[in-house]
Each structure stands twice: as structure tokens, then as C-alpha cells.
């Protein structure tokens, strides 16, 4: 039994959750494509996390749990409401162009050098042309989440994460080709 004055574990968890606000906002920004919606999405994510706090399993990855809530919130709130290609969801980009790309353009040093010279805005623009799922899996990988954690966020089988990530990165390279000229 906890005594008066002892710190509430929920409060501790809450403060730990706040440590991820920057990284959550970053994903939200890349999902929604604008600052206002990103802030709303993050705020909604924390509100949902508070309500669902009893569903969090201590010892598991809190960051991945929050990412999952954020993405689900995005899908339920935004995807149905908007026809914008930026937030249009999984079918935004023709799947035929999301698969294994023709990476011949990268197969010499000159093209690799062009890729290295891309500026931040070009990389961001290229990423935003990808489907929601491709953007998410790339960003979660950059955040250092494991395949199991990414699968938890995406709600897919662990075994499919590797191939999804490979397809997403391949699609991004293909998009970057348009900027690296």
C-alpha cells in the first residue's frame, strides 16, 4: 500500500511520456503536413494516452505505445476527413511506384554524390510524397525502434516490417531521384 506523499506511478509515467513530445510532434508533422494539425494530433495523443493509461504495460516501450496512439489517432481523425494527398493515407502514391525501385540511377559514384548534395527541404519534400505508411516506417526506423516495436505501432506482423521498410526506403530513393539532378 502506498503512503500519503508517495509519488503516483501514473504521474511518473505521465512525466516520462512528456519526454517524447518532440519526437511525437515530429512524426505528427510528417503525417499531417502542417503545424496546426500536428499540434492538435499530439495533444489528442496525450489525452488518449491519459484515458488509456491502464492499458499500458509497465516495462514495455512507452515511446512505441505513444507512437501507436498517435498514428491510430491520425488514421481515424484525419484520413477519413481529408482528401489531401499529403494525408490521404496508404494509397496516396501509386503502389506500382512504391515497390522495388529502379535504382540504376544510384549505381555510380556521380549519382551517389548528387544524393549527398540534396538539401533538407528536398529530402523533406520527397518524404512527404510517400504514403502515410511509408513515411511512418521510415521515421520510426530513424527513431531507432526495433522491428517488434514498429510492428506494434503499425499493427502488423513483425515479419512484414523488414520488407515494408525496404519498400519504403526504395520508394524514397526513387523520389529523391527527381531532386538529385
Amino acid at each position, binding site marked *: 500500500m502506498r503512503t500519503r*506523499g508517495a509519488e503516483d506511478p501514473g504521474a511518473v509515467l505521465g512525466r516520462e511520456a512528456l519526454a517524447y513530445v518532440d519526437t511525437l510532434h515530429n512524426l505528427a508533422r510528417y503525417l499531417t503536413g502542417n503545424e496546426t494539425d500536428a499540434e492538435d494530433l499530439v495533444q489528442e495523443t496525450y489525452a488518449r494516452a491519459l484515458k488509456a493509461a491502464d492499458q499500458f504495460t509497465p516495462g514495455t516501450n512507452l515511446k512505441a505505445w505513444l507512437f501507436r496512439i498517435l498514428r491510430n489517432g491520425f488514421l481515424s481523425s484525419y484520413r477519413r476527413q481529408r482528401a489531401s494527398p499529403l494525408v490521404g493515407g496508404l494509397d496516396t502514391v501509386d503502389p506500382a511506384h512504391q515497390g522495388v525501385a529502379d535504382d540504376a540511377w544510384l549505381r555510380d559514384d556521380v549519382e551517389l554524390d548528387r*544524393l549527398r548534395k*540534396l538539401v533538407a527541404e528536398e529530402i523533406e519534400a520527397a518524404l512527404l510524397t510517400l504514403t502515410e505508411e511509408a513515411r511512418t516506417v521510415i521515421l520510426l526506423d530513424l527513431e531507432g525502434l526495433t522491428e517488434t516495436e514498429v510492428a506494434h505501432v503499425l499493427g502488423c506482423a513483425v515479419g512484414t516490417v523488414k520488407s515494408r521498410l525496404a519498400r519504403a526506403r526504395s520508394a524514397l*530513393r526513387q523520389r529523391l531521384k527527381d531532386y538529385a539532378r
Partner: protein
Amino acid sequence: MDCEDVRLHLHDDQRGHVGPELHRELRAHLERCPACAHEEAAEHVLTEVLERRLPQHPASLALKRRLLAEWPAAPVEARPWWRGWRGALVPALAAALVLALGPPLYRGLTPGARGDAAAMVAEAVNDHVRVLQRDRPLDVESGGIHEVKPWFAGRLDFAPVVSFEGDAEFPLQGGAVGYFVDRKAAVFVYKRRLHPVSLFVFRAEGLPWPARGLTQIGGAAAYTSVSRGFNVILWRAGDLGYALVSDVDALELGRLAAKLARG
């Protein structure tokens, strides 16, 4: 193992996420397959470009303040742990709590008063947020530690001892004069990616320094904690006290503390 299999594992291999046997198989394939070797080079470049240049969008201070106001910030009475979260959903109550915490916290930290580590940590976080909220967080822009440190001369009643001049990982942004509890503090602001990191240096005597739960960081016995989403590291060196605060990852903040506190 064919090319398709190899390419599926290249990214994992670059991150060191494959076992030694698979790693050897991949290396053997790459040595004899120029197409896959090019693919690996392209994966390297893509990772480098993404990690170094993809713009990051941290949350605004306004959003952080809104969230802080909605989350519990103080010890509560015994009750089912999840109810503490639900209680925090009442913004007015939370805002009142935040407002109410300020003055008592200050009084509890005055010299000679009986304080505790939590109060020191809360003070450090408050001071960090205060620095970030200033119109001009820096009084002096960094041209290097040898420009920032002399700038404090005449502005403080002590000489801040800080030898770490910043590096590529934690560049020094500049300095400012701030306060820690009842005394002036030298504030050094470093940066980790887009995250500001505040180092407060101040006279150490008369403050309720935590005596337990210390860990060795660099040359100092340090107290580490998390408060309201910010990581905090406190330590003493001679007559001076140090408080390092940021929302960067705890491990990263620890690395900076080790550089600052190296004996």
C-alpha cells in the same frame, strides 16, 4: 542467398542488427556482386542523408506548456495509480496546481531550509523553462567558451568553472545570467540537434543537495532525475553547484554531463 534476400538485410546489417553468421554471408555476397555492393553504398548514403539532413520538427514551447499544465506535477495521496492520470485531465485543477507550486517551492529551497532532491530538480526545470521563454534566451552569443566565460566577469559574484567548450555533438550556443533559487547563476546553453540544453552554474552552499542515489558521471557524484519531461543532472564541484537540464534523451544528457564534469 540471392540478391533479393541480401538487399532485404542490408539495412539491418548496417545497423548491426544481424547475427555474425548472416553478416558473414552478406559480406561474402557483396564481395562478388557489384550490383548489391552498389545497393549497399546507396543505402549508406540514404541513411546518412536522412540522419543528418532530414528536418526535425520539435514541439513548440507553447504546446509543451499546454501539455505540462494538463499533467500531474505533484505527489498525490494513495489511490489506484491510473486515477492520477484521469485527475490530470481537469485542466483547471492542473493549472492551479502549477501556479500553486511556485512560491512554496521557492520558500522550501531557501538556504538553511529543509529541502529534498525533488525540489532541486523542480527548480532546475523551472529555470530551464524560464530561460527558453525569454525573448532572447542568450545574453551573449557563443564565439567559443573563451568569449562566453569572460563575459560573466562583473556580472556574477563568482567565477563559473566550465572547461567544456562544446563540440560537434553539443555545440555551445552562448550564455546568459539567470537565477537558481535565491542566487545568480551563469547559464551556458548548449544544443543537441534542435534541443537546447541549459547548464546552470551557481554557488552551492546552503542548498539541499541530494546525498543519496548518486551516480558517478565524469569526475562527479551526480544526481539524475526526470521531471515534467525534462532530464536533470545535478552535481557539485568545490564551492560551485551545477544543474544540467534538457528534454534530450537521458543517455545523451549523461554524455554531456560527463564532458562537463570530467575531473
